[in-house]
């Protein structure tokens, strides 16, 4: 048998959650509605900005196929 351990999260995660990613929703008149997703896993720096530190870095050379690539 197994046990489910609790992740130790670093401050980079933003939310003190048990899982790195989770959805949330509610019921209205007995019908379930998904409202959105929490994710503390996406880096706050995740933008393509004009920071001079980034000036020598080019992006976009991977990921041209953006739909799910699962198998």
């Amino acid at each position: 048998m197994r046990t489910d351990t609790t992740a130790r999260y670093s401050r980079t995660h933003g939310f003190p959650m048990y899982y790195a990613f989770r959805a949330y929703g509610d019921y209205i008149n007995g019908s379930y509605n998904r409202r959105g997703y929490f994710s503390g896993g996406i880096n706050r720096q995740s933008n393509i900005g004009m920071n001079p530190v980034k000036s020598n870095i080019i992006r976009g050379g991977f990921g041209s196929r953006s739909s799910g690539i699962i198998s």
Partner: protein
Amino acid sequence: MVRHQITPRLNWQDKVEQLGFGFHTTDELYWDESAYYSLSPGEVEHIEQVTSELWELCLEAVQFVIDEKMYDQFRIPRAFVPLIEKSWNDDHPSIYGRFDLCLRDGALKMYEFNADTPTSLFEAGLVQWHWLQDVSPEKDQFNSIHEKLISTWRYLRQFMYDAPLHFACVRNSLEDLTTTEYLRDCAIQAGFDTKHLYMDEIGWDTNNHGFADMEGLPVRNIFKLYPWEYMVAETFGNHIPSDRNRALWIEPAWKMLLSNKAILPVLWGLNPGHPNLLECHFDPFGMKNYVKKPVFSREGANVSLFKDGFLKEQTIGAYGEEGCVYQELFELPSFDGNHPVIGSWVIGQEPAGIGIRESRALITDNMSRFVPHLMDTR
């Protein structure tokens, strides 16, 4: 193996979403707990033993392909051959893979090995385990996926750079993001400092000639849920061989050989008549009942099923120009019109558990449903 129909848990959507499982329903139901499969301990032991043996056969097949330099048959660009061979010879870290197996009338046959970007990991490792705790906590499940992911990440740390472990996937796919985040979660529990980024956010530092993250810091260890065959065809793929940081990509480059359907004729050629392999060739080889699969196909796309020489079933998709393999037809069993395929996980080189996906058609595609299982000891 028996299929049972049951009443789903009350508010099951809420229960699974609390775990972070947001793609339980798309246009159709994906997580289906209106049924479950029970397996006997003997069946579980059989799957475990066969998975272990198939993994050994796969490693021997990779060595054979490298020794015989069969890269053209695998459509591998020449520029990436040194990378593949180095990752193999240096034993670069690998975390997982999933065999797709068919269990019918006591026979267990391998359809293929999803070695590079397998998913349904989160559902198999976590969601079905929590289902079992709610529905039948006294029963067991063939499932040590979660523990093995953590212990394997912990083991791999000594073979990786003393640097953050990045996790990358494509945008706009909740399934891919969830799978990647689950793996990252397990790595955190194994003590890694981690970062997430999307594939298109991976940067190339033109001054330092290395990959960079969104903070401009070097990428040295990176898990990517993105196929190698896409990477080698894209702009940044050409940078990988000249990366001064020599980043460790997980899964490693040699998995390009195992995730390619061209490995199936190689496996058969090395082990003809093996009880867990299906006859497979680069042409129909006189077979009347066979399945034609593109070497790069994913999720059952562009698969054609022939019976008595006639096309019986096929799926559409964008694959096929790269060449095909022809595999002996071994039909999935039918449980009231439901056809289950067993996804048997290898994590850290060991069998780790299963997830079952079933479909109404004989070809399991991306509209299949994940159905939980338990081990019945009675």
